[in-house]
């Protein structure tokens, strides 16, 4: 099946999310849609999938114009989509999820779950997915859930499969497996549209590359193009992939974690005898696939989650058992993983967000009164210093782009005198410009003598920022290695393979 988009335009108010985009997906090819976050890739796919009405342009399937009113139409036409956030019902089994929306009835007028089960097995076997149709989705790993989504699409006879940022949640090994699957799909005649901002994947699998920037197609490229060529095309200017940082000059141990254990809501161990040290003036990055205890580690240090045993000292002071406020006052800066949930109050102004954790203190409060002038002038200063792009300091944090929200969080957390900076996924979802900025600020903190703890599931970021890398797996520290360790070794460690401590 050949899929063609001609002159697709989509506006939201004055904002043009897609500006006359042309795209042709030839049968049996992998077409990569490359662009930064916010470039308009997802909008384009939502138009194609019938979720948004286009303001202009047309969609052609096998050279015939089609009009999709909703996802159902798109699916009937043979287009399947795997969303970045999976659309699965967790308490349902794999087979139930796959049949959802086009249930078949057996002769006894009941749901024909067996037919769905057979369908799952058939597709699963054909591509070697190894998915149990009776497993509950909530028990599956993220990678397996993604395969369920792919089965769902294929079970509806999708000839074109759209994958929206499919590798964001995968380990390097799972990513490789997914790319293999994409290759198999192509060989069996299914076209794949791969939406991503990761150059490595594009080079590995794509047949054609279309690059989108600010809602426009800025060029097409062949997979033989170099990474820097693609990056330049995507960002619109030359970018340095590496973080420019002088050699660390580690001082005394500031953060010392000893035999730390914690238990999660479900009663499972989230931290298992974790011991770590972070020195003044060094960046320790914690690598690992999401959900292996890194988030919990950061939250235990902050005091948001209780440890069951162990000790955490910051500059000799015990942190365990303290309130979050007193941990912050002890000199911790905390950049949370999910900034929209834990970092900013999106309905508050930028001004107020910048003083969220300082509000009870001078100069922002005196005797219970807040000092509006001090808050405003603080905001002016921080907005300039951190280059927050906004029309007004009175704009709500929710109106900012992810990168600018993160700058607000960073500006706030760096306004106190820090001994330890914890940053979880500091650049997740940010554009390249903001990533560079955030990285520079983090390195600057390190050079001021702050101990920095980074939690990131992006291996590139870990390798670029870290002075030492600790790899976590199932709540344990698998090993601490130098930053020039090769990707393969790190990938194996992230999957649990043990590595001798040699850093």
């Amino acid at each position: 099946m050949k899929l063609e988009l001609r002159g697709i335009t989509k506006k939201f108010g004055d904002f043009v999310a897609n500006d006359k985009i042309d795209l042709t997906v030839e049968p049996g090819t992998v077409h990569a849609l490359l662009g930064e976050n916010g470039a308009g890739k997802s909008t384009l796919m939502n138009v194609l999938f019938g979720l948004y009405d286009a303001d202009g342009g047309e969609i052609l399937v096998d050279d015939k114009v089609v009009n999709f009113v909703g996802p159902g139409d798109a699916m009937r036409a043979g287009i399947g989509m795997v969303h970045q956030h999976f659309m699965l019902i967790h308490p349902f089994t794999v087979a139930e999820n796959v049949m959802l929306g086009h249930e078949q009835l057996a002769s006894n007028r009941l749901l024909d779950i067996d037919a769905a089960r057979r369908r799952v097995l058939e597709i699963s076997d054909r591509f070697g997915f190894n998915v149990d149709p009776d497993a509950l989705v909530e028990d599956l790993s993220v990678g397996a859930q993604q395969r369920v989504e792919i089965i769902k699409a294929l079970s509806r006879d999708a000839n074109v499969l759209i994958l929206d940022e499919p590798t964001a949640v995968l380990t390097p090994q799972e990513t490789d497996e997914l790319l293999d699957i994409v290759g198999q799909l192509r060989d069996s005649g299914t076209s794949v549209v791969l939406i991503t901002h990761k150059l490595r994947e594009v080079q590995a699998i794509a047949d054609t590359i279309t690059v989108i920037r600010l809602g426009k197609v800025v060029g097409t490229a062949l997979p033989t193009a170099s990474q820097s060529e693609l990056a330049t095309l995507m960002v619109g200017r030359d970018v340095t992939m590496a973080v420019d940082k002088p050699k660390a000059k580690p001082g005394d141990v500031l953060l010392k974690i000893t035999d730390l254990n914690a238990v999660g809501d479900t009663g499972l161990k989230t931290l298992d005898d974790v011991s770590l040290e972070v020195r003044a003036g060094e960046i320790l990055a914690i690598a690992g696939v999401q959900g292996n205890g890194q988030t919990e580690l950061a939250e235990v240090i902050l005091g948001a989650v209780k440890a069951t045993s162990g000790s955490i000292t910051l500059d000799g002071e015990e942190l365990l058992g303290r309130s979050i406020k007193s941990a912050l006052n002890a000199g911790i800066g905390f950049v949370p993983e999910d900034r929209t949930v834990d970092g900013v109050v999106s309905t508050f102004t930028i001004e107020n967000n910048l003083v969220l954790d300082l509000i009870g203190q001078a100069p922002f409060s005196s005797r219970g009164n807040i000092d509006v002038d001090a808050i405003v002038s603080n905001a002016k200063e921080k907005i300039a210093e951190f280059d927050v792009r906004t029309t007004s300091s009175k704009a709500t944090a929710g109106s900012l782009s992810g990168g600018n929200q993160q700058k607000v969080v960073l500006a706030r957390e760096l306004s106190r005198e820090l001994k330890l900076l914890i940053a979880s996924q500091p650049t997740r979802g940010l554009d390249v410009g903001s990533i560079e900025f955030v990285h520079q600020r983090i390195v600057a903190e390190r050079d001021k003598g702050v101990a920095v703890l980074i939690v990131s599931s992006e291996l590139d970021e870990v390798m670029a920022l870290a002075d030492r890398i600790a790899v976590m797996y199932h709540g344990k520290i698998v090993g601490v290695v130098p930053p020039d360790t090769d990707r393969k070794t790190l990938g194996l460690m992230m999957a649990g393979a043990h590595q001798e401590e040699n850093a």
Partner: protein
Amino acid sequence: MSAEEAKTETVETKDRGDEARSFFRSVVESNGLVVFLAVVAALVVGAVLVVSADNAVQDSAGYFFSRPTDLLAAAWSAVSDAYVAMFQGAIYNLQADSFSGAIKPLTNSLTFSAPLIFAGLGLGVGFRAGLFNIGAQGQVILGAILAGYVGFQFHLPVGIHLALAIVGAILGGALWGFIPGLLKATTGAHEVIVTIMLNYVGLYLLAWLLSLNSFQAPGSNNPKSPPIDGSAQWPKLLGDNFGLHWGFVAALLAAWGVWWLMERSTWGFTFRAVGANPSAATNAGMNVKMTYVLVMVIAGVLAGLAGGTQVLGTEKALTTGIAGSIGFDAITVALLGRSRPAGIVAAGILFGGLRASGPTLQVQANLPIDIVLVIQSVIVLFIAAPPLVRFLFRLPNPRLMKEVTA
């Protein structure tokens, strides 16, 4: 109150409360135009009801095709009678022979509005802190009980007596707010259920107290307390010809106080942050549980003052019906005022006016008092469904626009 529990709690409320919170947020943030149009739409719906309840209209409908103008004329006169009566009952009596008689309806409206403003302010503070306090009724009752008891039982000098009675109102309301706040903070009990139940506890506590001899007027078995001492009553604002008392002024001062609290104080900043995003507030070192307790106490104090106003200024004796439906009407007032003090004052006065106009509507326009309640309810219905109003008046949805461009 361990840190872990705190975390679990926040996560749980995040999941469970999300829908409710986004509903309240959409109400709190709905713009003034929508509120105004909701009132307009409610008056239109009210007009339809007035027309259909009117005898003359029903009669003329019988021969509509022979003389359609009769029906229209009857409908017009029914609607205009009703709304003129409403105006005269709530604001200005055109038929009065003196100025003081003419403005008496307005002063009545303001008298009715005072407790609604107090209780509405309390609820507004709670809504903005993310607490769905349905317990104003119970808090009003407790405030009235303590204020009333001080008022009729103690005999103290002028000034001190009123002050002490007001302290009673504050303590009564504070207690009835503290209980659900504490239960939420320590056990996670949802404030909606606890406050609803405490409304009943308060109501029957009052009924029981009024069955005791010590709460009844001497020589009477009626469930009614002795009258409040003159020294404990709110003084009249405009002389003895008018019911309006200083409780209304106190309500306006409270509105200013709440504005200061929410917009200019460190506490209010924390309340708003906790209400808008408890997770971010927790991570910023704010004590979310303590905030819940504090907010409920403040909400209780304000509702208690509503009860105090009612018993010390308007009714001047404690009865089983002392709280009327103030605690529930105040929910509407707070929603209509978008939880902002100025809005609550305006909405309180609007509702006071609707309430004051009831008898006039009945007498002058020969309409059942229920029509006023229907109009009130329809206003709430429209306010609670901003998309409906936007649809009726073809307004764009600002929220949607913002979301997709962000």
